[in-house]
């Protein structure tokens, strides 16, 4: 167990390749932290969805804006933050993708998947006014990140 939290911060370009890059960075950290294959899949997918959300809806695919990825290994969980430089949004205004009238929509499931796959998921206002997606996954029982 680390004596103090370990933190990684990466600034990403608003390009499609950042989705794969963010996924690969977080997967490496999560693997080292001892998550099993099933959790790794869920974590990786949640990061992809978060960055896709920031790329598409937050930064509106504007290459002049940046995406910020922060990964923190706390004592009992891994916390991931994905921050964009968009206008931010209110989770309460996002249509429910499970509602009958939305089932055939071709988009709008990313936030739902992050909520489903992670132990905790919230959206808050980032430091520059954009959206900050905060998600966490508890370490499997009896596993804590190595020093």
């Amino acid at each position, binding site marked *: 167990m680390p004596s103090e939290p370990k933190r990684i911060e990466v600034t990403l370009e608003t390009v*499609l390749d950042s*989705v794969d890059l963010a996924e690969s960075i977080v997967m490496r950290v999560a693997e080292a932290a001892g998550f099993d294959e099933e959790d790794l*899949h869920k974590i990786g*997918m949640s990061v*992809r*969805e978060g960055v*896709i959300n920031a790329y598409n809806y937050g930064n509106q695919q504007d290459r002049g804006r940046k995406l910020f990825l922060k990964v923190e290994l706390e004592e009992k969980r891994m916390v991931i933050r994905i921050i964009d430089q968009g206008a931010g949004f209110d989770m309460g205004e996002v249509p429910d*993708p*499970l509602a009958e009238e939305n*089932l*055939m*929509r*071709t*988009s709008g*499931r*990313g936030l*739902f*998947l992050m909520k*489903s796959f992670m132990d905790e998921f919230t959206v808050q206002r980032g430091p520059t006014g954009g959206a900050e997606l905060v998600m966490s996954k508890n370490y499997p029982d009896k596993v804590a990140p190595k020093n």
Partner: protein
Amino acid sequence: MNLQGTPRQVGDITIVDLSGRITLGDGSVVLREILNELTHGGHLKIILNLEDVDYIDSSGIGELVSAYATSQAGNGELKLLNLTRRVHDLLQITKLYTVFDIYSDERSALAGFR
């Protein structure tokens, strides 16, 4: 791994054997192009064999939904075959499992066409 699709014909039914990931970018585009080509070529009965697809993100789900809706609108039929556990679970939690016509063996999928 980038998505690859190989169509094969069984009577008037086209089975597309897919392998790789259906994700935002290449994977979704490849799937869209394969289906557009088939639709424009007059292929109305299509089975997507997802046996070797173990990863679909929300964009990939959107692409499948779009393909299904396009197929229905054009009097076609689209069925899904051999879902991996992860894809199965994904369609379950998004409530799309009941929307798509899903089969676990090819013979049943072929027999499922009108």
